[in-house]
C-alpha cells in the first residue's frame, strides 16, 4: 500500500482538489476554508453530523453550486464548474443516496439508461453518442468490475438492494469518471449486502479511482477508507488515517467538544413533573424498521427522541399518532390501549404536529381558521346533527387561540394559511393541537425551517404545554433543541432505543455521540 501514515499518497497530483473553499447561504455559513484533495487510488471517508457541510461540499464538487470563495483544481489545473455538466466532463461522478432505479427495466437497461447511442444512420447522432458495440463492451467491463455481470438481465425490482445500488454506480461508471462520490452507499443495507458494496469500492480503488465514501456508519468508514475527513460546522476538524482512530474517538470528533456547560440542559425544562404516566409504549415494532421501542411520558414532562435520518424517530411518533399500524407492542394512554387509527388517537387525546409542514401539515388554500379546526370542528356546528359551521364564531375562537400563541398580527383567522410565515404556520398547527384538547403532544421536527425568533417562541410554548399538564414527546434532528427542551432524551439507532439520557447527561455531544455509535 502506498498510503502514508497521515493520509493519501502525497506525491501524485490530486484528481480533484478544493482549496480554501467557503460557502454561505442567507444567514448560514455552510463551509469555512475547507481544503480537500482526492488522489487516484484512495478512498476518503467523509463524516460529519447533519448540517456539518457534507452536502454543500458534495454539491460544490458536483458542480451544482459554485463556492463563494476558494479554488477548485482538476488534475492540478484551476477550473470553475458552471453546472453539473462541467463536473461530469471533468470526470466527477456523484451517486446519490436516493435510488433512481426503474423497477420494470432490467439491470442492464438501467445501466445504459440515458446514454446517447450512435444512430444507425451515423450522421444523425449527437457528438457524445457511443457506438453500440463500444457500449456493450463498456457495460460488460463495468459489470465485471462491480461483480454484477451475472445479474444484468434481472429486472430492477428483483435485484437485491445492494445490486440496485451497484447498478446506479455502474451507470455512473459508464462515463469513465476519475472521481466518484458515494453518498451513504450502504444505508439500509444488511451487513452481507454492505459487504458486497465494500468489495466493489475496493475494486474501483485498486484500479486507480479516487472515491469519497460519505456515511454515518462510522465502523464502515473506518474499515473502507484510506483517509478519514471529519467536517464539523463547515470546517475540516480532522483528517487522519483510519488506524489512528476508534469508532468512539471518531464519534467524539464528529460530535465536538461541548461548548456550553451541561447545566443548560435542566435550565429550560426545569420544573418537577408529576409521576403520573400518561403515555406508555411497550415493545413497539413497526414494519418500517422500528423494533422493541418502550417508553413512558409523564404528565408535565418533555421527552426527546434523537437519532439520525432513518433511525426511526419519526416512525415512533407516527405509530403513537395512529398513522402507522404497529406490527407488535402496545400503546397505552391514561391506562387504556388505543386503536391504531388517527381518529381513535385524536379522540383519546393524542395531538400530532407532523414534520415537513408543507407536505404533511397545511392545506395551502384553506383559511387559518379551517386549518386550526380541521379534524375538530364539533363545537362550531349549528346543531349536533347539522354540520353547518358558524364561521364567525369559529374565527373568533381561533383568533383568541392564536393570540395565546402570540401569532401576529392579530385577526389572521380568515386568511389563507399559505400567506403566513413558516413559524406562524407552525403555530397554527399548534393551535390545532390545542383546539383538540389533547393530553399527549407529539412534535416531529417542531422548528424545521423556522427562523430563530419563531423557534424560541415555539420552544416557549412547548414548555408551557408541559407546565399546563401535557405530556410532550419531541423528535428532533437538532440536538441543541432537545437540550433546550427535554428532561429526558431517548436516542435511537437503527430502529431501537440505544441510550436513555437524563438531566445533566443531556448534552449535544452526548446526543450526537449516542446517535452515531448506537449500542456500542
Amino acid at each position, binding site marked *: 500500500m502506498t498510503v502514508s501514515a497521515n493520509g493519501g499518497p502525497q506525491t501524485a497530483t490530486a484528481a480533484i482538489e478544493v482549496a480554501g473553499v467557503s460557502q454561505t447561504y442567507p444567514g448560514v455559513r455552510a463551509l469555512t476554508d475547507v481544503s480537500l484533495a482526492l488522489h487516484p487510488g484512495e478512498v476518503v471517508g467523509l463524516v460529519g453530523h447533519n448540517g456539518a457541510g457534507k452536502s454543500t461540499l458534495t454539491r460544490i464538487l458536483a458542480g451544482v453550486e459554485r463556492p463563494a470563495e476558494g479554488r477548485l483544481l482538476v488534475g492540478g489545473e484551476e477550473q470553475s464548474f458552471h453546472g453539473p455538466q462541467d463536473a461530469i466532463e471533468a470526470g466527477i461522478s456523484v451517486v446519490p443516496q436516493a435510488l433512481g432505479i426503474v423497477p420494470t427495466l432490467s439491470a442492464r437497461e438501467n445501466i445504459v439508461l440515458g446514454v446517447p447511442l450512435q444512430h444507425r444512420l451515423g450522421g444523425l447522432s449527437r457528438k457524445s453518442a457511443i457506438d453500440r458495440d463500444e457500449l456493450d463492451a463498456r457495460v460488460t467491463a463495468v459489470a465485471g468490475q462491480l461483480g454484477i455481470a451475472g445479474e444484468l438481465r434481472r429486472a430492477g425490482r428483483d435485484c437485491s438492494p445492494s445490486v440496485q445500488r451497484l447498478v446506479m454506480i455502474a451507470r455512473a461508471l459508464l462515463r469513465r469518471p476519475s472521481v466518484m462520490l458515494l453518498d451513504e452507499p450502504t444505508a439500509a443495507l444488511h451487513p452481507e449486502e454492505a459487504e458486497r458494496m465494500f468489495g466493489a469500492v475496493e475494486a474501483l480503488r485498486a484500479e486507480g479511482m479516487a472515491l469519497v465514501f460519505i456515511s454515518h456508519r462510522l465502523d464502515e468508514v473506518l474499515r473502507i477508507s484510506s483517509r478519514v475527513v471529519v467536517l464539523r460546522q463547515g470546517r475540516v476538524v480532522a483528517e487522519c488515517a483510519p488506524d489512528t482512530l476508534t469508532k468512539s474517538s471518531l464519534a467524539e470528533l464528529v460530535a465536538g467538544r461541548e461548548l456550553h456547560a451541561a447545566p443548560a440542559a435542566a435550565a429550560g425544562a426545569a420544573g418537577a413533573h408529576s409521576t403520573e404516566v400518561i403515555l406508555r409504549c411497550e415493545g413497539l415494532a413497526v414494519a418500517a424498521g422500528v423494533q422493541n421501542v418502550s417508553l413512558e411520558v409523564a404528565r408535565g414532562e418533555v421527552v426527546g427522541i434523537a437519532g439520525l435520518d432513518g433511525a426511526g424517530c419519526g416512525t415512533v411518533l407516527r405509530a403513537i399518532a395512529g398513522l402507522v399500524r404497529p406490527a407488535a407492542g402496545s400503546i397505552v394512554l391514561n391506562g387504556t390501549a388505543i386503536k391504531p387509527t388517527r*381518529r381513535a388517537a385524536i379522540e383519546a387525546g393524542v395531538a400530532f404536529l407532523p414534520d415537513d409542514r*408543507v407536505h404533511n*401539515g397545511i392545506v*395551502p388554500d*384553506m383559511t387559518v381558521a379551517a386549518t386550526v379546526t380541521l379534524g375538530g370542528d364539533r363545537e362550531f356546528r349549528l346543531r349536533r346533527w347539522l354540520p353547518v359551521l358558524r364561521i364567525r364564531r369559529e374565527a373568533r375562537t381561533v383568533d383568541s387561540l392564536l393570540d395565546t400563541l402570540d401569532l401576529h398580527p392579530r385577526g389572521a383567522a380568515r386568511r389563507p394559511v399559505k400567506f*403566513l*410565515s413558516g*413559524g406562524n404556520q407552525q403555530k397554527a398547527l399548534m393551535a390545532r393541537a390545542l383546539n383538540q384538547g389533547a393530553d399527549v403532544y407529539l412534535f416531529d421536527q417542531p422548528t424545521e425551517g423556522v427562523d430563530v425568533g419563531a423557534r424560541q417562541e415555539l420552544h416557549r410554548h412547548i414548555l408551557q404545554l408541559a407546565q399546563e399538564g401535557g405530556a410532550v414527546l419531541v423528535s428532533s434532528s437538532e440536538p441543541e433543541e432537545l437540550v433546550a427542551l427535554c428532561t429526558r432524551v431517548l436516542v435511537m439507532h437503527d430502529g431501537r432505543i440505544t441510550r436513555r439520557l437524563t438531566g445533566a447527561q443531556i448534552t449535544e455531544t452526548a446526543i450526537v455521540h449516542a446517535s452515531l455509535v448506537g449500542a456500542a
Partner: protein
Amino acid sequence: MSPKPEGSRPADPTQPAGGVLTEEPVAAPDAVPQSAQPIGPRLLERLIPRPATAGGVTSLDRSARRRAFIGQIGVPLMGLALIVVFSLMADNFLTGSNIKDIFSQAALPLIVATGLTICLAMGEFDLSLNGVAGLATVLMAVLVAKKGMSPLLAIPLVLALGVAIGTLNGVLVGYFGVAALIVTIAVNSILQGWEFVISGSVQIFGGFPPGLVSFARGSVLGIPTLVLIAAAVAGLAWVLLERTTLGRHLRAIGGNAEAARIAGVNTARVKLAGFIITALLASLAGLLFAARETNAYPLNGLDVLLPSFAACFIGAAMFKIGEFNIPGTIVGVMIAQITANGLILLNVATYASYFFQGIILLIALLFARVVVTGGRST
C-alpha cells in the same frame, strides 16, 4: 383617522400571494417552503402545474398582479364577448323567450356540473356521469311510462340507484384505492350496457303521467321549475363546500390529502360521500330529463360529460382562482349553453357544437394555465 394601507388598493381576494397580508416584510428563510406551491395530489395542479412562485410573501410582481386581474375579469369578458357576437349575428338571440330558453337548457347540465365540482374539489374525477344520467333517464321512463309506477315512488327509487352507483365508485376509489379514472370509465360502461337491458333496446315514449310532465316543463312565477331546482341544488352545494364540515374535508383532501389524513380526516369515507353526491345529482338530472323529454332511448340521454368538465375548469379560472368553485361552475355552464344556443340560432349543425365545446374547454384550460402560471412552461 389615518387611512389603513389596505384602503389604498381595492381589496382583491384572489391575489396569489397577498401584498396586504404580508406580515413579515423580509422574506425569511422560512418563506421558501410556503412559496413552493405544488402541494399534494390536487387535481387542477396535476393538470395545470403551478410553478413555485418566486418572492412568495413579500409582494406581488406586476405581472402576477396583472394575471390575477385578468383571472377575475377574463372569463366574464369571454361570456360577454359571446353574447355581443351572437346578438349581432342572430337578431332573435337577445329576446326574452330565448334567454329563458338558455336558462332552461342550462338547468340540467348545471345540476350535473355541480356534482362534478364537488368531485373535482376533492381531487378526483367522475367519468361515469353520462352512464349515471342515461340509466336514470331510461329507468325513470320504464318505471313511470311502462310499469305505470307513481312518480312519487319512482323518483326516490331512481335516486337510490344513483346513490348505489356513487357508493360503488366511492368504495372502489376511497377504500380500495383504485384510480378513479379507470373505475369510473368501467362503471360507465356497465351502466350504458344496463340501459339496453332495462329498456329492452327500444325507445320508450308516451305514457308519462301528465302531472310529472307539466311539473318538468312548467314554471313558477315565470321561472322554469327546472331552473329553480338547479338553483337550489347549486345553492346547497355552495353551502356544502363553503360552510360545512364535509365540504371542508372534501377541500382538504383535494388540497393536500396527506395533511388531511394527519389532521384526522377519514379520507376514504369523505371520498365515498363525494362520489355519492356526484352520482346522486347526475341521476337527478337524468330523471328530470326523462320527465321533460317524455321519451328515453339508450345512449341518447343527457350528454353531459364534456360540458360538465368544461364548465368546472372554466369556473376554476375565476372567483377562487385555481380552485373548483360553484359560482365559477355556474358561469362555465352558462358560457357553454350560450355557445350552444347561439350556434343553433345561426343554423350551425348540431354535431358542430361538439366541436365548439371541445375548443371552449381547451381555451379555458389554456387560459387557466396562463392565469395561474403566466404561461411559463417550466
